C-alpha cells in the first residue's frame, strides 16, 4: 500500500457554488501525497460516479453547503451500488447539521466533516479508511 498513492475524487455535486472548502481540501490532500481529481462545479451524481470509476478512485469526497446533502449522498451511494463500485469510500463535508450527520452515516457515508475541521483530521481519516479497506480485500 505504501507505494500506492491514494486516489481521491473531490466533487461539488449539484448547483452549489461554494468551492472554497473543496479546493482547500483538494490541495491539502495533494500536499499530503494523494492523487486528487477535482471535478469543478455543477456535477450530477452520474458524472461524479463515472469520474470515480474511470479514475479508479479509492474515495469520493463531496462538499455541500446548500442543504441538499441528503439527496446527493443518497444518489451517489445508490449509483455506486448499482455499478458494483460500493468499494469506493464516500465521505464529505460542508454546512451539515449534527442531526443530519447520523442519517448520512446510516446510509453508508464513511465520515462527515463539519465546519472547523482541520485538513489534518480529514487526511488522517482518509488514509486510515483506505488502509482498512485494502486489508479487507
Amino acid at each position, binding site marked *: 500500500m505504501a507505494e500506492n498513492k491514494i486516489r481521491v475524487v473531490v466533487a461539488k455535486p449539484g*448547483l452549489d*457554488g461554494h468551492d472554497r472548502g473543496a*479546493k*482547500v481540501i483538494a490541495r491539502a490532500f495533494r500536499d499530503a501525497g494523494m492523487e486528487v481529481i477535482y471535478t469543478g462545479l455543477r456535477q450530477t451524481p452520474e458524472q461524479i460516479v463515472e469520474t470515480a470509476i474511470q479514475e479508479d478512485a479509492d474515495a469520493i469526497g463531496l462538499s455541500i453547503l*446548500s*442543504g441538499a446533502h441528503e439527496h446527493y449522498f443518497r444518489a451517489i451511494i445508490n449509483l455506486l451500488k448499482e455499478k458494483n463500485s460500493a468499494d469506493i469510500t464516500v465521505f464529505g463535508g460542508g*454546512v451539515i447539521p449534527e442531526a443530519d450527520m447520523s442519517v448520512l452515516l446510516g446510509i453508508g457515508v464513511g465520515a462527515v466533516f463539519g*465546519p472547523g475541521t482541520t485538513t489534518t483530521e480529514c487526511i488522517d481519516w482518509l488514509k486510515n479508511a483506505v488502509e482498512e479497506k485494502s486489508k479487507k480485500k
Partner: protein
Amino acid sequence: MFEKKQLEEIKAGRERFDASAVKSLAKNPERKEKFTTGGGIPLERLYAPDSLEGLDYEKDLGFPGEYPYTRGVQPTMYRGRFWTMRQYAGFATAEASNERYRYLLSQGTTGLSVAFDLPTQIGYDSDHSMAQGEVGKVGVAVDSLADMEVLFGSIPLDKVTTSMTINAPAAPLLAMYIAVAEKNGIKADALGGTIQNDILKEYIARGTYIFPPKPSMRLITDIFEFCSKNVPKWNSISISGYHIREAGSTAVQEVAFTLADGIAYVQAAIDKGQDPNVFGKRLSFFFNSHNDFIEEVSKFRAARKVWGRIMKERFGVADKSAQMLRFHTQTAGCTLTAQQPENNIVRVAIQTMAAVMGGTQSLHTNSLDEALALPTDKSVRIALRTQQIVAYESGITSIVDPFAGSYAVESLTKQIEEGAWEYIKKIDDLGGMLTAIEKGYPQQHIQDAAYEYQRQIESKDRVVVGVNMFHVDEDDSARQLLRVDPSVGENQAKKLAKMKEARDNVHVKGTLDDIRKAAQGSDNLMPKILDAVHTYATEGEICGVLREVFGEYKENVVL
C-alpha cells in the same frame, strides 16, 4: 499634514521610542515576531504623525461628500439617517418567505433582501432535473410571476426598497418585480432597490453563472440602459467583493478584484454608447466586513477613494454622484463558527461596527446559527438587534467618519489603496478582467490566500476562539434549527404544472420567440423579457431560450 520642523522632531522621538521598545523586548518579548492584519498587511508597532508623511488632507481625504470621498459619500452620514438595515432572507416557498419579510419589517428592518434558491439563481424551474434536492433550500423558489406576486403580497413596493441577489437571470427577475409593482398600480420609475447582476464575480468566486462572458455582459449592459430610462431609482448592479472575500481573498484583493470588475462593466457600457455620468449613478457595491476591525474600516475608506479616482480620471466622469462608491455590507459568513455558536454574536457586532465606521449605506448582519443552517426567527432577530444597538446605543453614529486622522487608520487606508492599484494595474496589463478570469488570475490569487488562511488556523498562527483555542466538548444536537420541508420541491413542481395549464400558452410561446429573435440580434432584451413575464412565462423557459442562443459557460477549473 505636519510642518517639516514638527515632523523632524517627531522622527527624533520615533527613534527614541524604537530604541526603548527594542530594549524592553529582552525582558518583555512581544506575543509574535511579526504582526499583520487579518489580510496579511505587515503592521508597525506604533503609528505616529511620521507615518502620514506626504498625506495631503485635501487631496487624499477631503470632506465627506466631496472628492475623493475617502471620508464618506454624504456630508452628514448617520446624523441624517442610519444605513438601511437589510437582512438577506428567503427559504422554501414564496408564502414562507413573505411571512419572514413581514416579520422582519415588523421588527424594524428598513429594506428587503431576497435570497433565491439555487435553481432560480441558475435559471432552472423547480421541475427541472437539475433542481432536484435544491428547491427552496438556500432561498425561495421563484418560477414565474405567480410566485413573485405571493412573495411580495401585502408589502408596499413604493415604500420599501428591495435588493435581489440574482445574477445570470437578473433580467427576468427584475422584470417580474416590475410586473408585480405594475399590477399593484406602482410605476417602474417609483421603484427603488438593487439587483446584484454581477456576473464576473460569479465566474471568480460564487458559481451561479449560466451564459458565457460575452452574452452575459450584453445582458448586463441591456439592463443598465433599460434602468437608466425606465427605472431610474434602481441600482442596476451591485458589484460584489463579498463573495470574493468569502472565497478566501485578502482585504486588498477584495477591493482590487471588485473594482477591476467595476472597470469592466463601465467600459462595456461605454462601448455600447452609454454615458457613465448617467448609469454611473446607479452602480452600487457590496463588501464583506471581516474580523480585523482596523483593517476593515480602512478598507471601506480606501475602496471609496480608489473608485472615485477610477471614475473621474480613467472614465472622465464629471457627475459627482456617479463618482461615488455607495455600498452594501454583509458581515463575514466565513468567520462564523459551528462551535459555541453564541460567540458569533460578538463577532458580528465587531464586524457591524467596522462597516459603520467605514460608512456603509446598507447592512446585513449574519445570524449566530448560520454555520449550521439557515437562521431561525430568533437568531435573525438578534442579528437585527445588533445593528440597532450599534445605531441607537453605541454613539459612533453621531460623528461623521470618526476614525479619520487616526495615524493607524490613515496609514492602512493608504496601504490598501496602493495594494489595490497594484492588482488593478496587473489586471489591466493582462488585458482586463475578462481575460484575467480566463487565465485564472484572480481565482489563483484567492485560492492561495484561502489555503494560507487555513494553514494559519491549523498552525494556530490564527486563533479562532472556540475552534482551535478555548474548545469545549458540547452536545449541540438539540439546537433548534430552521428546516426546509422536503416536500417543498414536489409541491412547487405541482403548482408550476397547474399554472402552466391555466395560462395562455400561445401567447407565452409568442413572447418567448420574440426573446429568441432579440437575443440573436442586438435589440435590448429587457422589454421582450418584461412582455414574457407578464404572460407568466417561467424563468426556466426564458433562460432556456437564452441558453439555446447564447450557450453555457464552462468553468475554468483552477486548483
